[in-house]
């Protein structure tokens, strides 16, 4: 069992999650040439080593996350929310908590 530290729920079994896909894929603009879409939809790096990939905590908070994982050992190096805005909000919340801690505990 792979144990994935969900940024929202803590460490959980990977059976709670579903694997999305390779997170390094960047989709082109809607009006980009067909070749650019062909690359994004069909061509893969297929790394044997550390890669970024998306997972969804389907049987938990249902949030999408980006996991940095080794495809040969299954070791997980980092996890962050997939959406930058959510990540920022989490960081902001942490800052607010930190400030309130400092205020309460001078």
């Amino acid at each position, binding site marked *: 069992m792979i144990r994935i530290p969900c940024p929202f729920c803590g460490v959980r079994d990977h059976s709670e999650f579903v694997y999305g896909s390779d997170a390094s894929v960047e989709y082109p603009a809607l009006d980009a040439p067909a*070749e650019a879409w062909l690359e994004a*939809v069909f061509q893969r*790096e*297929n790394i044997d080593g550390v*890669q970024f990939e998306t997972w969804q905590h389907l049987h938990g908070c249902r949030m999408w996350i980006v996991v940095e994982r080794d495809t040969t050992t299954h070791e997980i190096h980092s996890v962050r929310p997939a959406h930058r805005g959510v990540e920022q909000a989490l960081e902001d919340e942490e800052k607010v908590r930190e400030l309130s801690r400092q205020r309460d505990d001078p």
Partner: protein
Amino acid sequence: MSRYSAWSVFWNGLIGQKGWDRVWRDPEPKTDYDVVIVGAGLHGLATAYYLAKNHGVNNVAVLEKGWLGSGNAGRNTTIIRSNYMMPGNRQFYEHSLKLWENLSHELNFNVMFSQRAHISLFHSPSARDAAARRYNTMRLTGSDGELWDLDTLKRNVPHLNYGPDARFPIFGAAVQPRAGTARHDAVAWGYARGADQYGVDIIQNCEVTGVERSRSQLTGLQTSRGLIRCKKVGFAVAGNTSRLWRMAELGRLPIESHKLQAFISEPLKPLLDQVVVFGVGGAHFYISQSDKGGMIFGGDIDWYKSYAQRGNLPIVQDVAECATSILPCLGRVRLLRHWAGVTDMSMDGSAFICKTPLDNLFLNAGWNYGGFKASPASGWFFADLIANDRPDPVIVNYDLQRFARGCNIDERGAGPDPKLHG
């Protein structure tokens, strides 16, 4: 090298089994070959065999980083069938099944091909209609199949869960009587022995570590046993195709490496005469009984990308649930072994046997979760491609450009997501 026969078995019984030769030589690699095949799995060995036999190309080496047949050749459930529906696939897999039917005679090696029938259960009227459409389509290209109603199915396969409380109530089955199983090791050994008799060098423990190339040609392979130069090269390393592709600096491929598990139980007395398969809702399961009595079965791939040749526990649970839901009598049977192989999952679930951006490099890859049944035809058409430098009409859409042409061969209609083609 001696021919195997009933007489040779009898004679060796009399002389204490001392009359058997080596099955294949263990040669040192030469520095030059006409054709080098990377990967001594079933596809690579079959390719070498048909190169020599059909096309008279004998100056061939098959390089293997481990032992012959130690990859996916020994990590499958040995199911053979040709009930494919898409154009291209239909002709290809039917050709493969025809080769299987004569393979033991062809190779003078008993591959234990057993045409015990492949039974796909269906669980609703609409699934029956879909199966009828598939089997009618197959008949267009000379393949065959039958639809069984529930009574026929009960008569032939009595132990399935037909009860009123069945998790997956059974409605009937689509059956291909000519389908079956074979002994995976015997296929590898048979092709290796056959190729070796034609003069092919099978070089084990010889890992490709680098590729020497010019702008349009692959000129040589650096290996753990020295530099090997070659006029033509074929890659047949499903599971590790992307790694070799990167070594040759050829960029990206429409392939992801995933892993597929399979299981075998302790040996039982004869219980199941056929291959039984079902897929409904979230369940996917296939089972047969080996000649030694073990129940061989498997289900879905592990869902996440991996190069590790080991499986994970959620799928063990998944497959065990499928097994007991369809064959409740297996509830107290113990598992003997389980294993995982790394599979090339392609973007449409179909394979590649094609030319590449380099003039003298040819690719055999993308066998998804079903490469075993394909291996004779895969070798047959890959050898033809390498020898004649053009694809046979049957495999004309097994190329890397089919996505650009919009000619995806998506048997399941699952879309461009490799993990969904398991």
